[in-house]
């Protein structure tokens, strides 16, 4: 039985049922959040750690959640921040002369399933070649189908800027795929 956000929130707000609420929250959002994080980070182990940290922070800071906002928006915001922090750590560990998008594309090659279609791999490589903001907007809009208003709350950007970023991101990706597709 699928539990509604209102029930999760009620469980999380009561200290006696908080753990039960956390279980319900993870059941409801773990898949969406995991894939959101995984597309940003790509690395499997790091994505798991980041998702774990996201849930722990959500649990610890649930008193900061405002009931008038959407639960998934709040969770996406935590997950995005955690994922970006991990990416920044990776960048610091990288060699200065190494191209970050090249590094991420290698990571994509290491993590894709054996039977993955070439065009899908190209799409992931194209996403990793995008600037950070465009990447985030594109992924949340294209894969998660989030409304611009909600993405705006997650990444603290105006709806207009988000639309522009999405437009450019989509354009760049299509050009990348056209140029690199070999069949």
């Amino acid at each position, binding site marked *: 039985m699928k539990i509604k956000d209102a029930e999760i929130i009620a469980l999380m707000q009561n200290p006696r049922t908080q*753990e039960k609420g*956390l*279980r319900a929250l*993870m059941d409801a959002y*773990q*898949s969406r959040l*995991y*894939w959101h994080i*995984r597309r940003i980070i*790509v690395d*499997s182990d790091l994505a*798991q750690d980041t*998702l*774990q940290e996201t*849930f*722990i922070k959500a*649990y*610890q800071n649930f008193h900061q959640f405002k009931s008038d906002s959407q639960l998934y928006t709040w969770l996406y915001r935590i997950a995005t921040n955690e994922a970006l922090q991990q990416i920044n750590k990776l960048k610091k560990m990288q060699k200065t002369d190494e191209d970050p998008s090249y590094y991420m594309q290698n990571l994509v090659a290491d*993590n*894709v*399933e054996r039977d*993955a*279609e070439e*065009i*899908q*791999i190209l*799409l*992931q490589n194209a996403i990793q070649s995008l600037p950070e903001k465009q990447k985030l907007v594109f992924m949340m809009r*294209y*894969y998660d189908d989030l409304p611009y208003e909600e993405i705006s709350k997650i990444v603290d950007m105006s709806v207009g800027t988000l639309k522009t970023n999405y437009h450019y991101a*989509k354009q760049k*990706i*299509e050009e990348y*795929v*056209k140029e690199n*597709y070999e*069949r």
Partner: protein
Amino acid sequence: MKEFNLDNLERKNIYKVPDNLFENIQERVMNDVKADKRVPIFKLYWGYAVAAAVALIFGITFVFNWQTETTKDMGDQESYAQSKEVKTESEMAYETLKADLTSVEKNNQIVEIQRDEKYIYAQDNTAKEDKKIIKETVNAVSKQDETQMNEYLDSFTNSEIAELASNSTQDVYLDLYN
């Protein structure tokens, strides 16, 4: 590729996923959260520890103050006792003096003032000596007759009595403040 439209592409995840991914993540999260929940127990103990420390500080302060006051009281009592002792000694000295002044031997012994003074000054040396002297003096005073004393006093001239009285007062003061 000449034509490519993203909207026509199937949206799917192509990354490898480990087995029991979400079960493992949930277990790790719950373990972490339960470990975190133990923290308030520590906080509770810390609260008790702080309360105990405060109580200890107040306790020590109270005991210290009480001891100080007790010592002070005891000091007062001792000084009071000492003053009382002094007073007793002075009283005794006065009695000695009085006894000397009024001592009359049965065989009409003549009392000399100088001899009395000798007794008084002897008291200043040690308490033990004082007691001995006092005993001797008291023995000398025994068996007095009021009539004889009156006669004896009458034998003094006014000037002699005045001189005797002034000396005895001085001796008492000397005894008090030495």
